[in-house]
């Protein structure tokens, strides 16, 4: 077993009485892409900044390549950081920006130029080397920031919400681009994001954070179908929460809730899924599907409001409309059982359940 | 204060921290010595002072030339500031909202009194208005001070006006307000911080002015800073220290007013752009 590229041991960060990061332990596997995922104020950016050396942890240790780097200033860590704002030097050309790191390492001028060219080649911007940053589009600036971080041949590449300032199309394009660069260079990458789609699509390993703590981590394929608690489930887009007859909590995604005619026999649940009687409250047309809002009684006897995606092309039975009595089926394989000690507040999944007052998280 | 600066800064930036502390010492320490010597019981300007007393404050307040000059300077500063705002705000409106050619040139013209050395302007006014046209010195001072404060009025209120969205006034018109009503109820309130800043800045500039006022003094109407300057040059006693301490105290009051109304640092934001 190799040493992790970086490791956080019992790391905390407190600002006065506010705890931004609460004694976390984290290993960053070498040569993989790890995402830190969570709502704003969860401590993900603070964690990244401690890893990069921009703020010292209040307690705990940070190891890079197995060596203690807790007190090492950022310029001695050799980590390539891409800032959310890109932080390109406006008074230097693109080439000078990229060559800045090698210059600080006293690399001779010719070699610096070669390395900068190489890094710009990798991000496909070699032809813009003589421009100033403000003559570039947002997407191009982002690539320059990446090239600049790569040109120092960093031990880790750290990306702080790298795609949040790009428009939707470009963002999707850049996800693939960053993955390509990661696999071509074999770099260890740590990426901070609040976008679960981004994390799912890009990560080898995803780390979910909430209120300064790690709530769940693992490969997307393992985490997504089995959220540990209600918070993770909500964050990953599970909209429907039920209490089962035995008191356990379960979550199911709208696309897995099937709307069937009211006279469908309960035998359909032979696979062990749950069948509920429900009334349709509202139907919203969304092009590819219908978003059906329903009211039902869950197995524990509580009234619950549920959402179902009803795809006209694959679903059987008549199209539901408001006021219809229907039967709902949640297949057993699609039920995510949540841990009982879930402390998530019953708020909408998109809003941060914790106070987002962390000073360093204001922009994330 | 420099202790705080040194503790926080010197540890992390040794050179910059030391320079910063030196800068603060030069800026602040002489002022502190003025205050300290004002409370002396002795009759010479020396440090440490010979005992403590308020005697020089009493003498400063009882010294008629000083008190007359305070009244004169206040009159001049208030009138010049008011006049500069009254003339300057319409100019700002014309420059920022009007449809006239050569706006840049016009603004430059109104800022030009900042560029020519004040002593030179004072010489010009003395020669041309007081000697040439035989204007009395108060009128000349008022003309000169008002012209000197016009740049502040135009630039500082202009900065406020630039922040005010012209669509607001249009919206008020659409809701039924007359042009004048729209200006008074919508635009003027948005100019308020600029007006206060320009007013305070103008008042302080006029009240403290030496170079422009220097040649425009007569026995009947003298301004305070020039009176104090002449007194210091002739006799070297702690009365001026006491008078200076009183001016300092009044300035602190102005600074507090500035902080409470528009924020201290913002007032100066407008000068250098």
């Amino acid at each position, binding site marked *: 077993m190799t040493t992790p590229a970086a490791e956080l041991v019992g790391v905390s960060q407190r600002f006065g009485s506010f705890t931004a990061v609460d004694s976390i332990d984290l290993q960053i596997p070498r040569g993989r892409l790890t995402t830190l995922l969570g709502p704003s104020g969860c401590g993900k950016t603070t964690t990244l900044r401690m890893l990069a050396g921009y703020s010292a942890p209040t307690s705990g240790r940070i190891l890079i390549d197995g060596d203690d780097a807790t007190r090492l200033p950022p310029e001695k860590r050799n980590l390539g950081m891409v800032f959310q704002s890109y932080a390109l030097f406006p008074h230097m050309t693109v080439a000078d920006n990229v060559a800045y790191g090698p210059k600080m390492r006293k690399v001779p001028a010719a070699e610096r130029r070669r390395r900068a060219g190489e890094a710009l080649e990798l991000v496909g911007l070699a032809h813009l080397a003589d421009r100033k940053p403000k003559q570039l589009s947002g997407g191009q600036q982002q690539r320059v920031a990446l090239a600049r971080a790569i040109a120092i041949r960093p031990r880790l590449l750290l990306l702080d919400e790298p795609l949040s300032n790009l428009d939707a199309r470009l963002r999707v394009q850049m996800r693939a681009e960053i993955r390509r660069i990661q696999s071509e260079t074999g770099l260890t990458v740590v990426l901070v994001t609040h976008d679960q789609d981004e994390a799912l699509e890009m990560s080898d390993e995803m780390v979910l954070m909430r209120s300064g703590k790690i709530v769940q981590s693992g490969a997307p394929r393992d985490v997504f179908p089995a959220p540990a608690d209600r918070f993770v489930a909500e964050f990953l887009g599970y909209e429907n929460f039920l209490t089962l007859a035995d008191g356990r909590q379960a979550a199911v995604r709208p696309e897995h809730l099937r709307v069937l005619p009211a006279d469908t026999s309960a035998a359909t649940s032979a696979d062990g899924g749950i069948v509920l009687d429900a009334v349709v409250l509202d139907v919203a047309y969304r092009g590819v599907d219908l978003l059906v809002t329903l009211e039902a009684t869950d197995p524990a006897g509580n009234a619950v409001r549920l959402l179902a995606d009803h795809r006209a092309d694959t679903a059987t039975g008549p199209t539901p409309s408001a006021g219809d009595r229907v039967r709902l089926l949640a297949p057993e394989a699609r039920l995510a059982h949540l841990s009982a000690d879930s402390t998530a507040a019953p708020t909408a999944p998109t809003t941060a359940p914790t106070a987002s007052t962390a000073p360093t998280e204001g922009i994330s | 204060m420099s202790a705080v600066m040194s503790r926080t800064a010197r540890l992390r930036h040794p050179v910059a921290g030391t320079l910063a502390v030196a800068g603060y010492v030069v800026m602040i320490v002489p002022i502190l010595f003025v205050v300290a010597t004002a409370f002396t019981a002795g009759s010479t300007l020396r440090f440490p002072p010979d005992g403590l007393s308020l005697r020089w404050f009493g003498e400063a307040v009882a010294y008629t030339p000083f008190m007359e000059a305070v009244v004169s300077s206040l009159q001049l500063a208030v009138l010049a500031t008011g006049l500069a705002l009254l003339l300057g705000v319409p100019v700002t409106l014309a420059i920022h909202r009007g449809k006239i050619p050569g706006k840049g040139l016009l603004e430059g013209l109104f800022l030009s009194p900042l560029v020519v050395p004040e002593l030179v302007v004072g010489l010009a006014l003395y020669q041309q208005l007081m000697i040439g046209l035989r204007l009395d010195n108060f009128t000349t001072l008022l003309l000169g001070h008002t012209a000197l404060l*016009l740049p502040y009025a135009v630039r500082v209120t202009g900065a406020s006006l630039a922040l005010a969205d012209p669509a607001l006034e249009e919206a008020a018109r659409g809701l039924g307000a007359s042009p004048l009503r729209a200006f008074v109820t919508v635009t003027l309130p948005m100019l308020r911080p600029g007006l206060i800043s320009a007013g305070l800045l103008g008042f302080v500039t006029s009240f403290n002015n030496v170079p422009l006022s220097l040649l425009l003094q007569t026995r009947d109407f003298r301004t305070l800073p020039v009176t104090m300057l002449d007194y210091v040059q002739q006799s070297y006693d702690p009365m001026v220290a006491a008078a200076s301490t009183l001016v300092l105290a009044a300035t602190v009051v102005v600074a507090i007013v500035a902080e409470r109304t528009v924020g201290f640092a913002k007032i100066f934001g407008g000068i250098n752009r």
Partner: protein
Amino acid sequence: MRARSSLLLLLPGLAFLCVGFLLPAVAMLFAPPGVSFAQVLERMGAMLTDPYDLGIIWRTVRIGLIVTALCVVLGFPIASLLARSQSRWSGVLLALAIFPLLLSNVVRTFGWLVVLGSNGVIGQLLTGLGIVDEAPQLLYTELAIVLGLVQLFLPLAVITCYSAVAQVDPGLDEAARGLGASRTRAFWSVLVPLSLPGIVVAATLVFAGSVTAYTTPYLLGGSSQRMLSTQLFSYASVTVDWAAASATAIVMTVLVFLVSGISTLVGRKGATA
């Protein structure tokens, strides 16, 4: 706003500006009382060849340059520490740096008489400690003028540099550090070049202020350390030599315009580079 109403708003201000500033300034150059422009030019020619007058010009320029350099060297570190500090003290320290701008120059300069005078703080300290037998002559020296002017114009340098530093994204410092630059290296390669336009403006303001200031050379330089400003006053008020006064005023104004022009060119070049 129509052109005619804009013009109406402009006219009163424009009239005042002309009477209180523009016309007298122009008239003074070309038509001092009882003197022709040719005589003014002749006097100026004499001034530029006379060793005594040249000495005063050179002293003025020299003091201006030294004060400018000191204000930048002391002011920029203060500005960058204040702009980058997260301490709650930085607001207080900023206010402390700005406050002197509100305070009378006479009061501020008077402080140096207490510090540098023959019975002053430094003299007492040196003789008291037995370092020297007799207090050295500190007042009425070039050093005294330099100290006084640095105190006067350092706040201006601080606030001008402060707004320049505050506009530089702190993320750029961090990016430079992350790429391997030490604190010092990041300061010189990122913060200084990006704040340069502000530094140039600060230097220009300080230089223009220093070569035209009157109070400081009058109180701290005395008659032995004449500068252009004190010389101008003496021509206009003591010897009443209008040709010489106008000639001095022209030299002073040209000096200020020259430096402003150069700094505008430098600024423009920096903006396009």
